[in-house]
Structures are given as structure tokens and as C-alpha cells.
């Protein structure tokens, strides 16, 4: 039945089929974990019912600001999603399919509004839980939910007034990769060293300037009035160090998977490849951790704490990188 309805909307049909293909048989362990998680959340909510009631009351007092913020955030995210999804669809394998205009419009609307709908549903769940755990402030919870949902809906509608950004049509993955300019061709030196640069390049390729700028913006906004420039710079630098680590470790993991596939037919020992790929990554983690310790010290933290923090970060980061890189040959998985 669902197939017949979805049949005329190729993108929704594809999403449904992907979901259907990924679906696995319900397992007892999965259900047990979900039940345990739900119990834990219920327990936390019950334990914190007084604070939840206070939060609901506080939100009711500032409902206009909260709704406004929800509205702005929704408008921006829906507008961005619309631009991204339209660009993706224009280049996708479904782009050339014939689709009725009205159907295409409905399909696009559903896809673009999906996160807003999910937010409204999530808010309903949260405030229902608040109302149940703290019945005294159920009216506040209901009012806050209604206003926030209204804000989200208004934001979703308002998103259509946001103009589209200028189109960027560059080859994927190539924009932020540094271009090497070599005046004279040097001799070719057999070495595995290049594998060590790979995680770093991937890290830089993923750290797109726009993304970095937007990630730093909340830190600047949240900085209390009266903060000195030196402290602000230290906080931003700490944030950058954390960003480097959070980009570098996943990059090392992806690279290790690619290196494994690429070097499988080569007469190279795993330990050799491991050394080449992991050592530069660990060196950078150590450097970033040292920078973190220094920054903390500069911010007035005691030398001992700063040192402990740096060492701890270096240890955890290196351990994570070492544990996560998967350079051992694996058996090929059975196709679905």
C-alpha cells in the first residue's frame, strides 16, 4: 500500500526502500537497551521534576524570546536544507525522472520540512514528559510547547523568504584542498611517507573555512561581557585545538580504511603502514595537547592542572587514534 503511494515520489520511495533494506529483525537485546534507556530518562526526569517545573515556568516567562529564537533557528536550518536538497536532487540519479509538478512540490515540501516536524514531535515528547513528571506545571509545559511549536512552524514558513545563496559549482572535495605548485619536477623517491600526510589533508579538506567560522561564532556570542581580549583569544585557541582533534581522529580512521583497501595487494607489512599513518597523527595530537596545556596555564590554571590536562588529552587522543585505525585485513562482508 505504502509503495503505491510512494511510487509517484521517487525520492521518498528511495528513502523508504533504503530504510526497508537496512531494517533488521527485531532483537531482544536492542529492545532491552531501548527499554533501559527509556527507564533511565524517566528516572532522571522524575528526580529532576522540581527543576524541570522551574525551567518550564522560566521559559513561560520568556516565551516570546524562546519562540523567536526557535523561529530564527528553524528558518535558517530549513532554508539551508532546502538549498542543499535541491542541489543534491539536481545532480542525483533521480533528476531525469518525469515527475508531476504538484507531486514534486509536495515531495520537496515534505523533505524540506522533515526536521521542523521532527523538532515539533521531539518538543511534544519532552514537554509531555515534563507535564507527567511535574503535574503542577503542566499548564506551563503545554503553553511553552504550543508557543515553541508555533515558533518552529512560523520559522519554517518564514524560511521561504530567505534568499538562496550564490551557487557554488566546484568538483566535490577539491575546493579546500591545497594545490601544490612545484617549479621543477623533483626526482621520485620511493617512500610510504605520503600516507602520513593523508589524514592531515583530509582534516584540512573537512575543515572548510565557512564551517570553522560558523563553529567559532557561538563561542564569541557566549563570551560574557567584560571578557578580556587575551582570555577570549585563549578560549578560541582552546576551541580550535578541540576542533583539530575532533577532525583529525575521524580523518585518521577514514584514511586507515582506505589505506587498507589500497595497500592490500602490496607487499607491505601492516606494522609498517601503521607506523607511517599513525605516527604523524599522534605527533599532531601530542602537539595539540601541549598547546592545550599551555593555553590553560596562560589562562591562570595551575601548572600541575594544565600539565595533567595536556597529558590526559594526549593519552586519550593517541589511544583513540590507535584503537580506531583499522589497518588489519578484514574479511569482506556479505552483501545485502
Amino acid at each position, binding site marked *: 500500500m505504502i509503495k503505491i503511494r510512494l511510487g509517484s515520489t521517487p525520492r521518498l520511495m528511495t528513502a523508504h526502500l533504503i530504510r526497508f533494506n537496512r531494517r533488521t529483525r527485531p532483537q531482544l537485546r536492542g529492545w532491552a537497551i531501548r527499554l533501559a534507556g527509556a527507564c533511565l530518562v524517566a528516572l532522571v526526569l522524575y528526580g529532576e521534576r522540581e527543576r524541570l517545573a522551574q525551567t518550564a515556568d522560566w521559559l513561560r516567562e520568556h516565551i516570546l524570546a524562546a519562540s523567536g529564537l526557535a523561529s530564527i533557528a528553524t528558518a535558517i536550518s530549513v532554508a539551508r536544507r532546502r538549498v542543499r536538497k535541491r542541489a543534491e536532487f539536481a545532480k542525483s540519479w533521480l533528476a531525469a525522472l518525469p515527475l508531476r509538478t504538484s507531486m514534486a512540490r509536495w515531495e520537496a515540501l515534505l523533505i524540506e520540512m522533515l526536521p521542523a516536524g521532527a523538532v515539533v514531535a521531539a518538543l511534544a515528547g519532552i514537554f509531555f514528559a515534563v507535564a507527567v513528571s511535574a503535574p503542577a506545571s503542566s499548564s506551563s509545559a503545554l503553553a511553552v510547547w504550543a508557543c515553541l511549536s508555533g515558533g518552529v512552524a512560523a520559522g519554517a514558513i518564514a524560511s521561504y523568504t530567505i534568499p538562496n545563496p550564490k551557487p557554488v559549482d566546484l*568538483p566535490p*572535495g*577539491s575546493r579546500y*584542498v591545497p*594545490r*601544490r605548485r*612545484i617549479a621543477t*619536477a623533483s626526482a*621520485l*623517491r*620511493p*617512500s*610510504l*611517507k*605520503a*600516507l602520513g*600526510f*593523508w589524514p592531515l*589533508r*583530509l582534516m584540512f*579538506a573537512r575543515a572548510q573555512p565557512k564551517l570553522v567560522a560558523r563553529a567559532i561564532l557561538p563561542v564569541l556570542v557566549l563570551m560574557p561581557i567584560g571578557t578580556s581580549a587575551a582570555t577570549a583569544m585563549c578560549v578560541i585557541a582552546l576551541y580550535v585545538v578541540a576542533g583539530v582533534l575532533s577532525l583529525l581522529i575521524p580523518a585518521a580512521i577514514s584514511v586507515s580504511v*582506505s*589505506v587498507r*583497501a*589500497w*595497500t*592490500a*595487494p*602490496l*607487499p*607491505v*607489512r601492516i606494522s609498517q603502514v601503521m607506523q607511517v599513518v599513525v605516527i604523524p597523527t599522534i605527533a599532531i595530537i601530542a602537539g595539540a595537547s601541549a598547546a592545550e596545556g599551555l593555553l590553560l596555564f596562560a589562562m591562570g590554571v595551575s601548572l600541575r592542572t594544565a600539565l595533567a590536562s595536556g597529558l590526559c588529552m594526549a593519552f586519550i587522543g593517541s589511544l583513540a587514534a590507535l584503537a580506531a585505525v583499522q589497518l588489519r*585485513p578484514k*574479511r*569482506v*562482508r*556479505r*552483501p545485502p
Partner: protein
Amino acid sequence: MSNDILQIRNLRAGYGSRVVLENISMSLAPGDWYVLLGPNGCGKSTLLDCVASRLIASGGEIHIGGVSLAQNPYEAKRRLGYACAPEALPALLTARQCLEVHAGAKDLSAIDGDLFVLAEELKFTPYLELFVDTMSLGTRQKLAVLLALVGDPLLIVLDEAFNGLDPASALVLKRHLRARLDRCGGAVLLATHSLDIVEHYADRAAILIDGRLQREWQKDEIRRLRADNADFEAAVAQAMQS
């Protein structure tokens, strides 16, 4: 002891419980250009993946240059050159770095000049400093083939390596491989759909259907077909239907 470059005995491979290759046995002598033909999904790439140790076989033996791939993979792989799929090449390395990594992995002190001559003939030299990410499909294919030839391997394994190459580059590569085999021995195992390679360059060919070698053409048979100017396409079609 035989001096075969590649020896496969009773090979069995698949994905999980799905068996793709069943009881495959074949051998390549020095100078052999062996072409694997067959319909899509018959197991050609799976067979090459087993030889390149990208897939662990569930049974049977593979020997490269007399060395068992299962027992001594390091030594066996030293004798192997495998051209991976162009999309499997590392996007964020330059062509030069890819060549350096392959040469480093094979413990070479330098790359032989023959490879640079081929790179020049394939008009690949201007792309040496470019990132793989920015190359076209054909250029990546050329790089994959060049990587397979690093270190002058005994056995060259090519999976549809002529796909995406322009006719001039494809001709250069075919002639280079033929000359290489005639000059220094070695062997080429190629999976392809283009029958012109069998008609003009290959020494032996086989059709793989449903994971089994259905029909094999030996050197003298191919020579006879060439001499009679026979229609090889019809012969392959007939073998596939039977």
C-alpha cells in the same frame, strides 16, 4: 617444480554463504597474456580480487611465482602488480605520491625508467603533481595501470583496465604489455569484455560462467583462429550459449 607465474588450484571463494567461484584451476606460464571473459557478475573480478589478496578465498591455493599467497603473502605480493579500480585511488594524494608509496612498499630504491617512458607515451607526465581527486576517469585509470607496473612485477593483474582510456592510450598500453611480455617474460591476467584484445594480443583466453571456467582457448587455438581470420566473437557467443 613448475615455473608457472600463476598457479590456481581448486579455488573457491564467495561472500558469506554465497559461493561465487567454485573449483577454479588455472596456470599462467611466462609470457602468457591470459584474458578472462564472461557475462557481468560471473565472478571475474572476484577471481582477480582473490589473486590480489583483496578477498580471502574460502578454499584452494594460489601461487604467484612459485610462492603461496596464503603462506607467504609478503613474498607473493612482491611478484604481483594489481591495477585497482580508479575510484579506489587515494583522492588526497598526488599521482607522484601514489607512485612513491607503491615503490616504497615494494622496497625499490628507484622507479625504472621504462615506467616513465610509458607515462610519457600515455601523456600522463603533466598529471604527476595533480591530486587524484582532480583527475578524470581515464587519467585515474592510467595511474592505476602505472601503479600496477611499478617494480616490474612478474604477474600483472588488470581488472577492466582499458575502460575509460582513449583509443590512442589503449593502443599504447596494449602494445607496451605485449612488448613487455615478449621481452622479459612475466604474465598478464586481464578481465575484460573487449574481444579485440583476444584477437590481437592475448595468448590464452577463458570464459567464466556462474563461477566456473566454461571454456578455455589455448595458444595454438587462438593462433589458428587468427590465421583463419575466424570470427572470435561468434566463437565466444557460441561458448556462452552452450
